[in-house]
């Protein structure tokens, strides 16, 4: 079980911070919604957590957790949707750590893949080409793949944008299941009712930390108003941040 700790963390691009001086920790088995206005640094924070983006300042400790043990669903997938590959093959990629370059699929792995497809409601879609799927069906495929990754930490960047309510309900069930299995879940969300109903913890940011803790204490009018006053602009003349870290 791993605690992910942020210490005076600053993340950004070309020296401009997208989010700065963030400190706190994600407890093992916790389920946290990351909330904030557009441009508040949510996606950037997730990229830092999964280790794609190197911090400009401060650091992230993941204890003994390796980067590849984090299942990550980016907001913008690099996937080529016209690639000639079936739903089943795409989902099985989640087993990469087990099968690797040469490994074969044993019987128990096949049945796990089958169960994953069933869990996201895609039984019977195995042989369909991914190019023929709708946006919602494809999101289900991504969730099935993450199910097979069997990771201790699951990081989701806006998993429900442009997805209909039925798909959202089904996929929220998958997330609830991960939570019951004591996995750490971090998800960027925009729908406040989803946050209230499903996520015990919330991290509210607006290029800096506004509040972090139990959802009811974080999602107050005072905090939300505060988060809306943030400045989105990059100042090219900005001076080196004087807010002293640790």
């Amino acid at each position, binding site marked *: 079980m791993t605690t992910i700790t942020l210490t005076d963390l600053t993340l950004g691009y070309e020296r401009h911070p997208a989010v700065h001086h963030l400190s706190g920790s994600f407890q093992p088995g916790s389920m946290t919604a990351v909330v904030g206005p557009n441009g508040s640094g949510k996606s950037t924070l997730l990229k830092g957590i*999964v280790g*794609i983006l190197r911090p400009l300042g401060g650091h992230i400790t993941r204890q003994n957790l*390796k*980067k*590849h043990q*984090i*299942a*990550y669903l*980016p907001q913008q*997938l*690099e*996937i*080529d949707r016209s*690639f*000639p*590959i079936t739903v089943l093959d*795409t989902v099985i*990629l989640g087993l*990469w*750590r087990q099968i690797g*370059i*040469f490994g074969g699929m044993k019987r128990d792995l096949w049945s796990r893949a089958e169960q994953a497809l069933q869990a996201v409601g895609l039984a019977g879609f195995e042989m369909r*080409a991914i190019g023929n799927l709708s946006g919602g069906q494809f999101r289900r495929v991504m969730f099935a*793949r993450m199910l097979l*990754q069997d990771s201790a930490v699951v990081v989701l960047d806006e998993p429900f944008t442009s997805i209909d309510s039925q798909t959202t309900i089904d996929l929220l069930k998958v997330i609830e299941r991960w939570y019951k299995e004591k996995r750490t879940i971090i998800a960027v969300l925009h729908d406040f009712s989803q946050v209230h109903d499903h996520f015990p913890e919330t991290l509210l940011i607006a290029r800096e930390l506004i509040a972090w803790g139990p959802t009811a204490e974080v999602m107050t009018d005072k905090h939300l108003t505060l988060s809306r006053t943030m400045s989105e602009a990059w100042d090219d003349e900005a001076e080196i941040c004087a807010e002293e870290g640790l």
Partner: protein
Amino acid sequence: MNFFVDLLIEPFREYIFMRHALAACVALAIGCAPVGMLLVLRRMSLMGDALSHAVLPGAALGFLVSGLSLYAMTVGGIVVGLTVALLAGAVARVTALREDASFAALYLISLALGVLIISMRGTSIDLVHVLFGTILAVDDPALILVASITTVTVFTMAIIYRPLIVECFDPGFLRSVGGKGATMHFLFLVLVVLNLVAGFTALGTLMAVGMLMLPAASANFWARQFWSASLVAAIIAVIAGYSGLLLSFHLNVPSGPAIILVAGLCYAFSVFFGRYGSIYRRHKAGGHLTG
């Protein structure tokens, strides 16, 4: 009956250079098919073209140093081709410039360099042969070279098949699970350069990329999966090689362009009548299915 034997088989039975050429074509077809398919899938078709031009100064340098020596030109081609591929990849990964743009920049530089080197030596019939194809003069060393490159290509593809496909389909995911995406990409570029060099000993630097791209582009219209499409591409390439050689023999035209033109005919046919996504398929009338 005898007429057909004379037309289709006799040239190969009678002349050893025709048998050599045919063997080289078959070897090229087998190596180029999967590599070309991946170039198409990775949307790198034009990068293959760029790389083929990048091979030119290497071959020209080899020629400048030791005359019409297969080994010198091959080594030159491989070294320069790989350098361009590596530099382009490195520029793309280190800077904000995208890979296709850095490829274009580097191949233009090396093309200019190649032309400069050629012009220093003046025009030479030998050099023209090298640049535009001498498949009818494929000797034993050349044949062994082409066959070796094909063998290396097929085995390497078999070994790195899975990560290569995943890197092509979802590079972000491969990175996130700790797969060696960049290494696979590099190995693949090595294969592209090797096959271009194999092609230029037989078809010339200008035509080499034709054996990579045309069969692969055609195969896309006939098969939906990578392995089956590669098979179709290899078959098309063999047909093009065989028919092109016969055309070249009977009509007394250069072999390289003849082979590529036959491949071009296969491509045109596929565009119109292919099983998937062809003009015929897209405009065929008929009711839609119920579900």
